[in-house]
């Protein structure tokens, strides 16, 4: 068994017990000195005395962070162009339903079977279906700008179409909802500061990422943990309830903070190419670390694609490889010609 496979299987066997340690917020996999390491996110240094240094030989590392959903506390720090009314609506600006405060519009997505156009964001941004609570019903108007920034029914862009409910007694893999635009032309394929998506990929530890969101705009960071199981506390009807999300990734900003309240729904993309890797849904208000779920889980749960052209990503990579090969062959021919020329000259 490879050291990676071993780390994943050890995590699977021990994650329940690690999450039961008081003050442990999340567990996942990180890489330290090129070794897969079990990452434990704790809410304070006081918890560290209970943490093992290794489990079945796999090293353990910890980080102090307090993850919460970035919701219900918009701080009105948004750049004007992300909180103002804009048509067509690009990814990275504020939206909400008429029953929720607001968050970030992730991007336009396309049904995998019918190619019909929808808008994507977090469940807690558009609908808030948490356990027994449903703030917005299917068909509820979706507005841009969001309610928190003065949006009203006159700013309607569509209606709530599909929601993945978040349950207390299961491991949730996404916090996502779709809305159907009143007119397909009202949604732009463009994401602010990122451009039109060319594809999607899977986040890896060490990957450099950027996100485009309502409150903090475009920020950059590094994926620090993958395969994480995170306990998120949500206040519902005056009572704190714990919801568990699994297959989550964590990222930290390279400078400043990566996200804040109102950034939920932000597309998290690769740096260097317009490939989406996930959707921001939670974070730590003190450190600015973010939690996001991989885009592949949205594709699986909602049967939608974030790219209009449904060419598989590998096809584009093949095209790139082909062009590189042509380039290499071309260079080879040129070099051969040059060497022949030099040899002929020397021969003279």
């Amino acid at each position, binding site marked *: 068994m490879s050291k990676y496979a071993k780390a994943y299987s050890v995590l699977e066997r021990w994650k329940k017990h690690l999450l039961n340690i008081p003050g442990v917020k999340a567990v996942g996999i990180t890489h330290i000195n090129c070794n897969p390491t079990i990452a434990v996110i704790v809410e304070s240094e006081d918890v560290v005395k209970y943490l*093992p240094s290794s489990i079945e030989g796999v090293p353990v590392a*910890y980080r102090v962070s307090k993850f919460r959903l970035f919701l219900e506390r918009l701080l009105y720090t948004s750049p004007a162009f992300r909180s103002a009314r804009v048509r067509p609506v690009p990814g990275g600006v504020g939206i909400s339903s008429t029953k929720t405060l607001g968050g970030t519009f992730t991007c336009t997505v396309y049904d995998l079977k019918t190619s019909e156009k929808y808008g994507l964001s977090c469940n807690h941004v558009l609908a808030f279906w948490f356990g027994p609570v449903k703030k917005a019903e299917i068909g509820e108007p979706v507005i841009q700008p969001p309610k928190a920034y003065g949006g009203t029914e006159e700013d309607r862009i569509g209606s709530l179409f599909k929601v993945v409910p978040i349950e207390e007694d299961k491991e949730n893999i996404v916090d996502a909802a779709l809305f159907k635009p009143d007119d397909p032309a009202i949604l732009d394929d463009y994401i602010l500061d990122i451009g039109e998506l060319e594809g999607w990929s899977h986040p890896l530890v060490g990957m450099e990422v950027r996100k485009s969101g309502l409150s903090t705009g475009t920020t950059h960071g590094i994926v620090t943990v993958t395969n994480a199981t995170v306990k998120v506390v949500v206040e519902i009807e005056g009572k704190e309830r714990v919801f568990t999300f699994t297959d989550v990734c964590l990222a930290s900003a390279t400078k400043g903070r990566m996200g804040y309240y109102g950034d939920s729904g932000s597309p998290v993309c690769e740096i260097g190419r317009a490939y989406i890797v996930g959707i921001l849904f939670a974070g730590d208000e003190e450190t600015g670390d973010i939690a996001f779920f991989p885009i592949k889980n949205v594709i699986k749960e909602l049967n939608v694609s974030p790219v209009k052209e449904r060419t598989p990503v590998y096809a584009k990579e093949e095209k790139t490889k082909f062009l590189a090969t042509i380039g290499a062959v071309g260079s080879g021919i040129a070099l051969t010609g040059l060497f022949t020329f030099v040899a002929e000259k020397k021969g003279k």
Partner: protein
Amino acid sequence: MVKVRFIVRDINTKAPIKDALIQLNGFKVTTDEKGVAEIEIPEGTYTIVVTAKGYEPYKIESISITEPITITVDLAPSYVFLIRF
């Protein structure tokens, strides 16, 4: 209710381990400076997990507890340090 006493020690030196966390299903207790912890729990079958900084964790699965008992757990030290990242 049944009283369970734990003694948690270093496997090599037999020195007591302070602040070891013992989980018995939903119940939790920590050891004192003598490496001792006591807890009263309902009779039943438990999975016991012991964790402490600097050591490999220890797990006993499906142990039936029906009468007062003392359980001695010897933890093996880790050969790596717990690091902050």
